[in-house]
């Protein structure tokens, strides 16, 4: 094993652990002609035959100049990737079914721009990046989410055809990045509130009574609470949500046991996920109980995130 590790290390010494910036060196850039490149070669062969057949001295020169342009274009394509520095960034947690977004920073130390870089985390979904000379570009790689839990960024293919399109140079990046995927929330009525020490008698709807102010809309906010009138007045402003202060704090206990045991595990997690969002949207305090995990009651963005994390990483 140790020998194998050493061998791999010797062969792929350039492979960093993926957490830091990676500079693309010549050993990790591959290059092959494209379909257009093959067409170009065929055209050159026909042109050369024509030049020989008609004894065109300048025809020879033209073909040879084009050969030179092709070769130098190949080097330029390679150079478009060579020396590029890729730094992994962050990715915000999302719900299953939403797109996960991975941020990468591409830095160009050269004074000339690097154009038409394409990054593909998934085949067929390319993100294009153009970096000006001595500049940095932040790009976001979208990735479909299918399951809850950690979604690691798969191997990213970084490729370019610039400048001539006759060659395609590519490199594989393996930045150490992952995105947390929460279970998709399911809309269902919240479980009844349990009485708390504060003695709030009102139902969970108690938080609907007094208007307390606006805040920016979160993806899970109920449509009923959006300030539509304000949105209609100013299209440019992000959507706002009306916040209401409940008469008394209600404490909800969101318990695994409250979900229908006949349902599959994932559905039950989705129900809990929906409750967490609903409870948070209503401004309630809530606690989350999962088999083996108990999150004490709380409220706010931090708490919500903690609950959703527990749901995302729950191992049945």
């Amino acid at each position, binding site marked *: 094993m140790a020998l194998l590790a050493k061998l791999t*290390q010797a062969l792929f*010494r350039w492979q*960093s*652990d993926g*957490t*830091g*910036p990676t500079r693309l060196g*010549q050993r990790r850039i591959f290059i092959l002609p494209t379909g*257009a490149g093959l*067409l*170009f070669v065929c*055209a050159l062969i*026909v*042109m050369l*035959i*024509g*030049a*020989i*057949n*008609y*004894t*065109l*001295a*300048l*025809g*020879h*020169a*033209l*073909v*040879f*100049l*084009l*050969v*030179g*342009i092709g*070769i*130098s*274009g190949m*080097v*330029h394509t*390679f*150079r478009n990737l*060579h*020396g590029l520095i890729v*730094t992994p960034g962050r990715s915000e947690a999302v719900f299953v079914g939403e797109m996960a977004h991975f941020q990468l920073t591409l830095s160009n*130390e*050269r004074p*000339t*721009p690097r*154009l*038409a870089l394409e990054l593909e985390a998934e085949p067929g979904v*390319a993100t*294009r990046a*153009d970096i000006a000379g001595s500049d940095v570009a932040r790009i976001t790689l979208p990735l479909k989410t299918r399951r809850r839990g950690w979604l690691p960024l798969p191997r990213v293919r970084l490729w370019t*055809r*610039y*400048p*001539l*399109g006759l060659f395609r140079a590519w490199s594989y990046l393996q930045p150490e990045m992952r995105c947390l995927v929460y279970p998709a929330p399911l809309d269902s009525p919240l479980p009844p509130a349990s009485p708390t020490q504060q003695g709030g008698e009102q139902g969970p709807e108690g938080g609907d009574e007094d208007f307390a102010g606006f805040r920016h809309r979160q993806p899970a906010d109920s449509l009923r609470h959006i300030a539509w009138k304000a949105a209609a007045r100013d299209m440019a402003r992000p959507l706002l949500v009306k916040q209401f202060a409940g008469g008394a704090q209600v404490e909800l206990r969101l318990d695994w046991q409250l979900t229908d045991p006949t349902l599959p595990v994932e559905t039950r997690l989705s129900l809990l996920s929906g409750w967490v969002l609903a409870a948070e949207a209503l401004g309630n305090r809530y606690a989350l109980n999962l088999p083996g995990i108990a999150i004490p009651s709380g409220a706010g963005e931090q708490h919500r995130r903690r609950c959703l994390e527990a749901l995302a990483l729950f191992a049945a």
Partner: protein
Amino acid sequence: MTTQASEALDHWAVPWLFVAALATVAPHFEHQPTWLSAYCVLAFGWAAWLWWQDRRLPGRLILMLIVVGGCGGIWIEFRTLFGRDSGVSLLVLLMALKLLELRSRRDAIVVVTLAYFLLLTHYFYSQSIATGLWLLAALWIVTASLIRIHGGIAASLSGTLRHASVLAIQALPFMLVLYLLFPRVGGPLWGLPQDAHSGRSGLSDSMAPGNIANLAQSGEIAFRVLFAGTTPPRDKLYWRGPVFENFDGITWRPHGGLGQRARVEHQGLPVAYETTLEAHNQRWLLALDAPSTVPAESFLSNNLTVNARQPVNYRQRFRFTSTLDYRFNVKENPSILERNLQLPAERNPRTQALAHSWKASGASPEEILGKALDLFASEFFYTLRPPLLGENGIDEFLFSTRRGFCEHYSAAFVVLMRAAGIPARVVTGYQGGERNPVDGYLIVRQSDAHAWSEVWLDKRGWVRVDPTAAVSPARIETGIANALPAGEPLPALLQVRTDWLRTLRHRWEAINNAWNQQVLGFDRERQREMLARFGIPDADWRDLALALGIASTLLLAAILAWALRNRRQYDPVTQLWHKALRLLARRQLHCAPWETPLTLAARVRIARPELAEPFDAVVEAYLLARYGTPGHDLKPLRSAIARLHRWRCC
């Protein structure tokens, strides 16, 4: 067909392709049918309008109709689609119509490939310096548009043009190496279309009154000659072309069929020279009378014309030696002599009567010859615009009009000789030439085209007699420009009498000649000479391939070195720090972007205690070098890094 969003062309990429297409198509408008140029301009205009208005491009059916219409027009015009001119017209048509179909990157690549192809087709018509420069510019534009297509909207105009220049400049050494070392294949690989070499001027293979006078109005260069020694006097410069023996009363034609070999007795020193013959699509090579050695790919015919085995349809060089004093076929085949006495019986009775009277007076052939020349010297007039002649052309010329160009004099002279019983024939070719003092080449133009006569005299063989010399001695001694009166339709080029203009013309022609000789004339032979100069005698294609391989590898290495040299120049301290980080990375420890040297050192102490000691020393030395007193010595840092490098754990 739908286009993928990522492959679609952006709006502002299209004008680039328009310009590229226009730059490659427009020069063809000069020599292709007018209707086709109009057709293309309409297609261009339509495409540009659609682009401007951001309208939908025409559908498949409409495009198909336009293509079929254009192809039909070309077929009607040329009666084929596969000739040289029709092929070029077809390419031009496709290019114009492809602009109506510009949707995706793929379409754009087709346009660019077509543009490169069209660049080549211009060389069918001209390979001059100007064409070369124009096409270099067009190549630049086409390549820039290819770059623009792939760069997308982020590519700036100046950046794209600069990138294309960089590519072209880097391609130049490759072009040079390939041009010099690529194994050259001579001649056509297979049969060329009928019109492959059309549109070339020169002497024709028959002579009727007016032929040569027409040719002489062209200032085009027929061939250039470089003499090994001194240039012989002008009146000896008779460049022999086709010889005409058959006369039908109006037109002179060569006698077909092969005869015995010419027997030439050379008397005098041989003159060596190299002729660079412009393409004239005929086999004769125009050597000086009388050639003693001829190039390998040619042979000396029985009437002393040097003929190539293949028609000369591109500019070629030939080496000859000639002797200016010679005796030719002193013993001639009687059937040939008989043939050279034939005249159409009922034509030109007055001429024949005159000749008969000379013969009846008992004069010797030499005396008859002198009488005829005296006749011409008396009251004849040398002109490019002689009056038209009828059925008995020679009679009219000799007895009434008395105005003519060299073909009239030589024809009349030959008819007189034949009627007097002296074998005679017409020789066409060129006479004289102009020496360019800049490069020493003798330039022979179409305006130097000439016709003279040859008579066969007992014991002397075939003797050249130039009746034009009797009419206008200046023609032979100083050239046609001085021999003709003012107002004759001579090419403007020849009428230049101002000194500085003449010098300018000489310079320009010397440059063109150098271009033709050194650049365009670089063939297999020149390639071999060049390699021999570099110490590789008798190079075959294997030597060439080897040399080519070595040279291109070196070039590629140079250009790769340029591509890889993109390290930012850090100050020496940072460079040393990066080196230390690389040493760590080799041991599976990577510095995260947010880590300071001290936090990294702390991590190393925990993760790899065995490396802690040398690395701590490096960090300490680095911090001192970085933040210590200015001008701090780098030695401690260097030695600490060297120690880390040598550090063997476990």
